[in-house]
């Protein structure tokens, strides 16, 4: 079920259920009144601008570093809430895909969706690497980091059971700890961190398997002594937080570590950040204080910025198109299959005749590196930038992302447009077609097109050779890749295939 109006997109949250296939679906949308009112006011002030504008505008506001907490915080919170609502469908798409790809996740689709929603509630983290100049849609961009975040959480969730408290206390990053303190409102984070550090120093030098829990009195006393000596050392240095804290007894050390262990475990549990929670949480005060004018679009150089971005995009595409066209056909095929159609490197040797996966891996690296060098060296010239540019790894990394994104778009454009032409005679009345039948037909079309275009056979391979992944054969895996590609095309633009027939197809994703 898709959101209909612009207002709804930025103010409504879904009711998630599990369908008969075990996949999450949204059965109804419910608008949060505060968000609806806010969005109405904004759209009234800026009539005629579409969702792409609001996506970027609200994301910018959500990511703005508060210079004055009292005035900027409500803007950040409100913008984050709009973005969170906007990402509901992206969350659903990602979770559905994960549930399809990993049938043994040991987590319900609803729970998985709540995990995704919790991540979407923190745009500062999710969009930290988002480049406003790349012209990428936020709903498209977010899918990869969201999927990564979710799978990391699931992986950690599975591992948690293996960790006794000593192991968990030792093997957690300081950044995660600080994040926990921030989200749970813990004020005395320094005490926890110091106690943890001393515990690790004193007890964890020989692994964590043999450490008793609770710790024995001798260990606790030693930790308490170490805690005190560290406090004293810190107190000697200026501006240190250690001056504000008192020593702990062994018993208190145990209490602090026990609480910390629980906080860490809780941090990996599913947090139900629903629309109600979001309105009920400690941000509600900010809502009431909010001056809606703060979030209204300011007089920025939107058009000018857009032109610059477009120019950059054109330059990137021109360089990459040119460089890609100069590659040999087998190499182009390989890159399209891997980057555009999602083939695994292990599936390429049998399809394209490489010796083994290692050869594919090396060839891919080599070609991508060549493309990358071409892009980052030619771009300034293309943009007529005369001054010498001192490149950084971050910029080169951005170039690498551009290439992967371009390869994906290029391949998808190539084959999705072919698919869009093919079903014209088949789907006379899409409303009556079963979704799976349509999908199956499109997969066959795609297979056929690839085989013709690349002059290869996707079937004439070692059919019986089992893949190491999920017990599937290579052919079965290829079938899955093609299906995934078709599903992505349908989900990202459900009306694409039916525009010519003026049909509206509800892909029901």
């Amino acid at each position, binding site marked *: 079920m898709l959101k209909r109006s612009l207002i709804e997109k930025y103010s409504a949250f879904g009711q998630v259920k599990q369908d008969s296939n075990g996949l999450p679906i949204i059965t109804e949308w419910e608008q949060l009144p505060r968000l609806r009112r806010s969005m109405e006011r904004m759209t009234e002030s800026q009539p005629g601008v579409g969702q792409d504008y609001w996506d970027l505008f609200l994301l910018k506001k959500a990511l703005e570093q508060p210079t004055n907490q009292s005035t900027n915080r409500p803007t950040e919170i409100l913008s984050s809430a709009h973005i969170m609502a906007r990402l509901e469908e992206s969350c659903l798409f990602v979770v559905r895909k994960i549930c399809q790809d990993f049938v043994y996740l*040991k987590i319900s689709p609803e729970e998985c969706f709540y995990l995704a929603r919790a991540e979407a509630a923190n745009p500062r983290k999710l969009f930290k690497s988002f480049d406003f100049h790349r012209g990428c849609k936020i709903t498209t961009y977010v899918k990869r980091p969201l999927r990564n975040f979710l*799978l990391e959480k699931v992986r950690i969730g599975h591992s948690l059971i293996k960790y006794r408290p000593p192991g968990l206390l030792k093997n957690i*990053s300081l950044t995660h700890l600080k994040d926990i303190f921030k989200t749970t409102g813990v004020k005395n984070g320094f005490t926890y961190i110091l106690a943890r550090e001393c515990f690790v*120093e004193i007890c964890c030098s*020989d692994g964590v398997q043999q450490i008793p829990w609770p710790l024995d009195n001798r260990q606790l006393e030693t930790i308490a002594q170490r805690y005190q000596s560290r406090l004293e050392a810190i107190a000697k240095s200026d501006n240190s937080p250690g001056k504000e804290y008192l020593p702990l007894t062994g018993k208190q050390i145990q209490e602090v570590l026990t609480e910390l262990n629980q906080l860490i475990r809780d941090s990996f549990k599913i947090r139900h950040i629903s629309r109600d929670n979001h309105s009920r949480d400690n941000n509600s005060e900010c809502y009431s204080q909010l001056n809606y004018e703060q979030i209204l679009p300011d007089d920025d150089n939107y058009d000018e910025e857009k032109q610059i971005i477009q120019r950059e995009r054109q330059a990137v595409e021109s360089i990459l198109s040119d460089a890609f066209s100069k590659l040999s056909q087998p190499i182009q095929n390989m890159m399209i299959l891997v980057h555009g159609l999602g083939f695994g490197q292990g599936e390429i040797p049998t399809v394209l005749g490489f010796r083994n996966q290692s050869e594919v891996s090396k060839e891919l690296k080599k070609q991508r*590196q060549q493309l990358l*060098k071409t892009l980052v060296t030619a771009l300034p010239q293309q943009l007529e930038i005369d001054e010498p540019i001192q490149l950084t*790894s*971050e910029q080169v990394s951005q170039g690498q992302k551009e290439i992967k994104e371009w390869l994906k778009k290029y391949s998808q454009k190539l084959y999705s447009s072919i698919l869009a032409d093919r079903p014209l005679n088949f789907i006379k009345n899409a409303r009556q077609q079963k979704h799976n039948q349509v999908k199956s037909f499109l997969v066959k079309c795609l297979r056929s097109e690839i085989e013709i275009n690349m002059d290869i056979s996707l079937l004439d391979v070692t059919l019986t050779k089992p893949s190491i992944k999920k017990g599937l054969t290579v052919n079965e895996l290829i079938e899955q890749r093609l299906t995934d590609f078709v599903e992505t095309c349908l989900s990202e633009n459900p009306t694409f295939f039916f525009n010519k027939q003026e049909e509206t197809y509800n892909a029901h994703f």
Partner: protein
Amino acid sequence: MLIFEELREEFSDQVWLQISANDWQTASLSVQNASNQFAKYNAGLNRLVANKLMPWFQEEYDVEAKLWPSAEELPTIWEFVNGTALMLDNTRVAIVPSENIDIEELRVPQEWIDIPDWVANYYIAVQVNREDNWLRVWGYATHEQLKTNGDYDPFTQTYALERADVIEDLEVMWVARSLCPNETVKVHPLPSLLSHQVKSLLSQLSQPFPYSPRLEVEFSQWAALLSDSSTRKQLYELRSPHSKVAEVATSITAAFEKSLKKLLVRLSDLKEKVVTGEWQTIDQFIASVNQAELAWQFRQSDRDVISPSLRPETIHDLIDQIYHSTNEHQRKQAAERLADVRDQKEEVIEALVYLIRDTDNEETRWTAAESLWAIDPGNPVADIRMIKDLGMLLLNYPVALMAAMLEKANQKIAVLLRVYPLRNQRYLPSGLQLNVLDEKGNQVPQLEAEAREQDDYIQLKFTGDRLEQFSVRVALGEAEIIEYFVI
């Protein structure tokens, strides 16, 4: 449950490698010299990651990865700091492994960022999952990123970058190597440590902490000590269990059948008054035993009675000889005679100190030192002297071992070892041997002495380097006692 293959495919920009039981075993076997469990763990983890990634670099990028500074020296870094540096042609990468359950940060010890000689071009984040036996390279950052944008934590002395700021795709690094070769920023030079600072730091940091001593002193001092491969090695060796390994003392008598574990004794510690246990200063020793038990050589009162007092003009002549004579034998004799002065002590002390520092002759130096001990026992120039009652262990002959050191002008250390009879024994038993052994337990040529009939002591003198290790063997017949030292 996500299996390894699924994770590898899902996070395809990252490098995923499986770890076998053999990998763990190989890594742990190669780090047995670490001083404590923390160091062993750290060295094992780093060795494992290096063992896995070096062939991977070779296989994937046809570049030979070499350990920096060298395979031999890396354990001296792993003793204290997490991280392994590799040279990939002219590029230095520091691999920073972590067993954290999450990958929300790349946290790099300050040493790899702020020690000028240690600065790497790139810092590679590696997560090691011991439970599921895999490791992954999940990103990298440049020195500039860490130094400029990293969050410095003074409490752990680390720089950290959040995951989103880390460049996930290691492929980028290979292109960046050629397109942006210098992504390091200048760091402050480290202070030069004076010799007494080095000595003090080594003494403090070689204590048996169960953790790395890296946070125990101010960073600039720690970094200066660590960046010098020589002092780092010295600290490593001081902490190494092999410098404290016991030797077995054997004897035909029941008393010698036990194995005796002896802790390494630092000669310099005496100056800090930190020597405890069986070793004592001369003052402590004399105070602790019955005067009657002391051998003649120790009884200063006897000396007072026997030696006539010197006249002022004689003292003046002797001092003049010390300063101006070119005859070393004459200077030595002058120093010996000045042990008996009772007046004009300040001038005499000054002359003796001058002689200790000025002479190139070890006999002269120690003669001057002995005179100084007699007239000014606490003088700091000759203050490092200790003695141990070896009891009745040598076939029931009571003897004491004295060890003393003097700082020479060229940073070398003069060492004196002397064995005395005790408990009213006027002479040492004939045939008693005194030998100096090197750190491997081999006899040092020419550093051996044997008591003859009516020898009231035997001694050996030699010169060594700071922190050099040696042991002393005192033996009689088949009975022997070995004491371990570090200069």
